[in-house]
């Protein structure tokens, strides 16, 4: 390893620095070199003892935390595909046709990841080259999050357009990594949600479900709609009407969207959002390494639970009667709480602010999804909304702190 590093330092690097032949591509070289080797930067002033963890390694740990969700999502795409064809049933063990499932999943997921990274990093490289600064690592995580929150059958060019929009308008316009107001990955999804509503809702959550349906090979009773999509149908219906009872049967024990299935994640949905379990494993990794804020994750979940309890008490339609725990394991709630709300750039910065930010995020997520069936994925809206509110929350937290200390000062001055 040392010899390799030496080789690169002595033979490759001079091409890119100073008057080297490839100096125009210095940003590319620098990005790759600091990614692969710990950079030899030393502090110039101030504190000299520093943690070895820099932005690149932080980002990399977040990606590690996403791996369980990614692997499960890949498996689940294949699982849902073969379920829709009727080749397996929900009674089969999880490892039936394991390889086939993973292959189907990989065929769908790998192109999504490639397109997302190619578009996003391409733009980052061009902008870094234009402005003459080193490439920021911010896109490492965004580029992975974007494919994970896409519907399985979304056209790839739409992913590219959305990624380009998010990187340019949500990030580079504000000054690049660390300056963005909105979460980049969620901006990409929100863009798709509003720009191409037909491709972002309906029967797109399962690989090839439309073609299978047209060919008449779809298993009986399999529609491919998500849990939230089914539940949205109950809004405006009487609590125990025909429609509501039909939908609620799927959410009872043994149904397709039973509490257990929603928790494990063997239900249709975006690539990696379905499994609350995988998201919780990711949360454990993030909290253990100290990268994700446990305050945000836990208050986000509490916020969702509180709203769920309030809805239970109201019970105006079947959607509201779903248990609070069931509510928060459905859809992208857990994935959003763990990977989206904790984005250190767009979240609140103060500790008190983080509690408020997380709580309201979870609270609004459930509220939006139940009140407005047109926006089944309330988590996305809620987190983007809270991203916008985060600076305001921080402002009031800091103001309160200043007032408290002024009062203390006045009190101690009075005593003296």
């Amino acid at each position: 390893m040392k010899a390799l590093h030496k080789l690169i330092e002595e033979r490759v690097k001079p091409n890119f620095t100073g008057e080297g032949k490839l100096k125009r591509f210095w940003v590319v070289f620098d990005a790759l070199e600091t990614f692969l080797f710990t950079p030899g930067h030393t502090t110039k002033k101030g504190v000299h003892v520093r943690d070895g963890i820099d932005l690149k390694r932080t980002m990399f740990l977040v990606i590690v935390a996403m791996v369980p969700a990614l692997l499960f999502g890949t498996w689940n795409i294949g699982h849902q595909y073969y379920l829709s064809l009727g080749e397996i049933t929900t009674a089969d063990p999880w490892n039936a046709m394991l390889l086939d499932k993973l292959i189907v999943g990989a065929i769908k997921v790998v192109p999504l990841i490639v397109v997302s990274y190619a578009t996003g990093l391409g733009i980052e490289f061009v902008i870094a080259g234009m402005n003459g600064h080193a490439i920021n690592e911010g896109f490492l995580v965004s580029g992975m999050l974007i494919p994970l929150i896409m519907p399985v059958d979304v056209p790839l060019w739409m992913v590219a357009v959305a990624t380009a929009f998010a990187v340019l308008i949500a990030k580079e316009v504000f000054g690049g990594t660390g300056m963005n107001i909105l979460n980049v990955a969620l901006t990409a999804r929100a863009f798709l949600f509003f720009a191409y509503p037909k491709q972002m809702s309906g029967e797109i959550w399962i690989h090839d479900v439309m073609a299978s349906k047209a060919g008449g090979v779809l298993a009986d009773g399999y529609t491919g709609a998500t849990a939230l999509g089914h539940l949205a149908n109950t809004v405006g219906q009487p609590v125990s009407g025909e429609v509501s009872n039909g939908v609620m049967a799927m959410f009872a024990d043994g149904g397709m969207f039973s509490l257990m299935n929603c928790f494990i994640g063997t239900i249709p949905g975006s690539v990696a959002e379905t499994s609350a379990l995988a998201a919780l494993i990711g949360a454990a990794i993030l909290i253990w390494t100290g990268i994700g804020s446990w305050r945000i994750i836990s208050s986000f979940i509490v916020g969702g639970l509180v709203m769920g309890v309030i809805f239970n008490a109201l019970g105006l339609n079947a959607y509201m009667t779903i248990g609070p725990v069931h509510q928060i394991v459905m859809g992208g709630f857990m994935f959003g709480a763990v990977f989206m709300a904790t984005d250190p750039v767009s979240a609140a910065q103060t500790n008190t602010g983080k509690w408020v930010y997380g709580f309201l995020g979870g609270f609004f997520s459930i509220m939006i999804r139940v009140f407005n069936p047109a926006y089944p994925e309330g988590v996305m809206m809620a987190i983007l909304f809270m991203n916008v509110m985060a600076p305001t929350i921080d402002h009031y937290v800091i103001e309160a702190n200043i007032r408290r200390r002024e009062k203390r000062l006045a009190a101690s001055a009075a005593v003296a």
Partner: protein
Amino acid sequence: MSTETTTAVEKKESLFSKKNRKLLTDPLDDSNPITVQVLGICSALAITVQVQQAVIMSLAVLFVMIGGNVIVSLMRNIIPDRIRIIVQLVVIASLVIIVDEVLKAYSPDISEKLSVFVGLIITNCIIMGRLEAFALGNKPGPSMLDAVGNAMGYAWILLAVALVREVFGSGAISFPGFGQVKFLPEGWFYANGGFYENNNLMILPPMALITVGVIIWIQRARNRSLIEEN
């Protein structure tokens, strides 16, 4: 806002002297009412879904601006200073009513689409601003040039935004008298088994804001004199 003041030039100045030509060209770029002064934004965001709306709106603003600037400039010496805003408002409002009635009479469907925004020309800051800043202190000739320049500066931004929004949002440009120009074969659309889909976000108001923002971005990248020092 322009810092033009009454110039006490006694000698006869040609209408298209260098200074007067600048009145025409300045608002197109360096002091564009929308992208630099950020005036008249509401209408620019609201009626740029279709090119035809933008064209009609631009013509309406052009008419009201020329009329307003020339009339106020003619009356500039007899308008009492204290009630000048009300006088300006009366002039603009009368002109807007004329535009509105003409639109209703000759193209009711466009009038319907523009709805309240024709009436709101009265409150368009660009027009009020030019009357205050220019027409009150200048002769009718230069005032007319100033009006044309500013209306054009408003119009080209409107047209640019509308073009982007209609092409990507509707996939075709329709204009009365010219029919509909389609840019893509029907077979490319999802509904017909293709791969393309119109961008619905383009039709929604936020995209107008973003498009104007991108135009400002491009303009500032080209014209460095616009970038503030801080």
